[in-house]
């Protein structure tokens, strides 16, 4: 007999035991709603169907049910245990007595309600409207037709561009890097992408790369990379054409 496959049919749960455990551990099922005694009864019934006592199953079941009970007990007194532990024995006894008294009174009040319900069992009254009652009139205040035009205009308005503010990403403008590369390349004919941008955030590096592509499209620079992931080298396209410029500016 496999304990985990024990089929349960409880008020709050229906299905195999291992699913119940999974749901409880994932906090998807409130253990305080689970009737643990019901689980024990289900297990004992299954056990009784067998001819021989399945000791392995009993052992496994005991471990699992003990764990469930401990979890349940803790769940029921989340802060109270701590609260009571801080009290002197006399105070704790008084606090417990107070709570028990409160519960006791409610239990008796519940019993009074049960009696009352039984004694009032032959009182019948109509629930809801009478068969031939007039229909309630729901009157609507006068409305302004301008508000109809207003909502149609709202529906016809371009949706706002989604805001990225919540993503907390700071995008530096691409132009900032375009200018930065131009300035660098004015002083040097060749630069190494990774070296120049070391220490920048990933977002800034990405924007810098966009700036490179922009400059490449304009024909201002040449980009080389010997192999994938190899350093990216950037050079001015006019280096070859105008060496004197380099010399002059260097």
């Amino acid at each position, binding site marked *: 007999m496999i304990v985990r496959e024990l089929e349960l049919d409880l008020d709050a749960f229906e299905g195999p035991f291992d699913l119940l455990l999974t749901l409880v551990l994932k906090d998807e099922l409130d253990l305080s709603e689970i009737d643990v005694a019901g689980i024990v009864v289900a297990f004992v019934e299954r056990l009784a169907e067998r001819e021989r006592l399945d000791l392995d199953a009993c052992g496994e079941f005991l471990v699992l049910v003990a764990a469930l009970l401990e979890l349940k007990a803790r769940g029921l007194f989340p802060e109270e245990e701590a609260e009571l532990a801080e009290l002197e024995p006399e105070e704790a006894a008084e606090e417990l007595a107070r709570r028990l008294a409160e519960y006791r009174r409610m239990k008796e009040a519940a019993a009074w309600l049960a009696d009352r319900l039984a004694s009032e069992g032959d009182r*019948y*009254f*109509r*629930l*809801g*409207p*009478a*068969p*031939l*009652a*007039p*229909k*309630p*009139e*729901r*009157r*609507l*205040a*006068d*409305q*302004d*037709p*301008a*508000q*109809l*035009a207003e*909502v*149609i*205009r709202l*529906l*016809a*308005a*371009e*949706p706002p561009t*989604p805001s990225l503010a919540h993503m907390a990403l700071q995008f530096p403008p691409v132009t900032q890097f375009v200018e930065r590369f131009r300035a660098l390349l004015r002083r040097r004919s060749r630069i190494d992408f990774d070296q120049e941008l070391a220490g920048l955030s990933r977002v800034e590096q990405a924007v810098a790369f966009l700036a490179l592509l922009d400059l490449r499209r304009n024909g201002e620079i040449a980009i080389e990379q010997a192999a994938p992931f190899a350093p990216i080298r950037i050079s001015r396209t006019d280096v070859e054409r105008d060496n004197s410029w380099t010399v002059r500016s260097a």
Partner: protein
Amino acid sequence: MDRPLRLISTNPVDQLARTVEALLVVAAAPLAVEELAEATQDDPERIQTALSLLSDRYREGRSGIVLEKVAGGWAFRAAREAGEACGRLFEKPVQRGLSHAALETLAIVAYLGPCTRPDIARIRGVAADSAVAGLVERGLIAEAGRDDGAGGAIRYKTTPLFERVFGLESLSQLPRLDDLGGDVDTIRERLHEIAEKRPA
């Protein structure tokens, strides 16, 4: 007649009449003679007798409760002389406004003419079922045939009550939307375009 046998009751008819009274005051719908016979376990003929006794006691001018025979059976109603008081009891206070969902739905139906729930949902970007149901219940829109014959979705149009509540002599008095193109087809097209751009 095929009727289940019942014990012949020895109860006097006026006691039966009291039981019938009790059943009628609890019922949420008119009760047929057969139902009354079933509940009282008495004879339909005797029920009829009890009902005529009660009809005499609960009649217009004599009592505020009037027993009436309607389709489907017998039921109590309020006497006519109490009509005004009943009106005051059932008249709910004036409802000031309409929800935004209701207004949007109403505006679409008013400006674009008869349209279906899927139409409205597409333009608004959210399901329109409860907004449409609420407006139908309030009598501001009503069914107006189906989209392309019998199988299509139900179309809705505004009602005369809508015109009255919004103080319009006719739909042509709706505020003009020249800024959106003016005519219905342009506005419809524009609404559909915008709806598609909206993030899902």
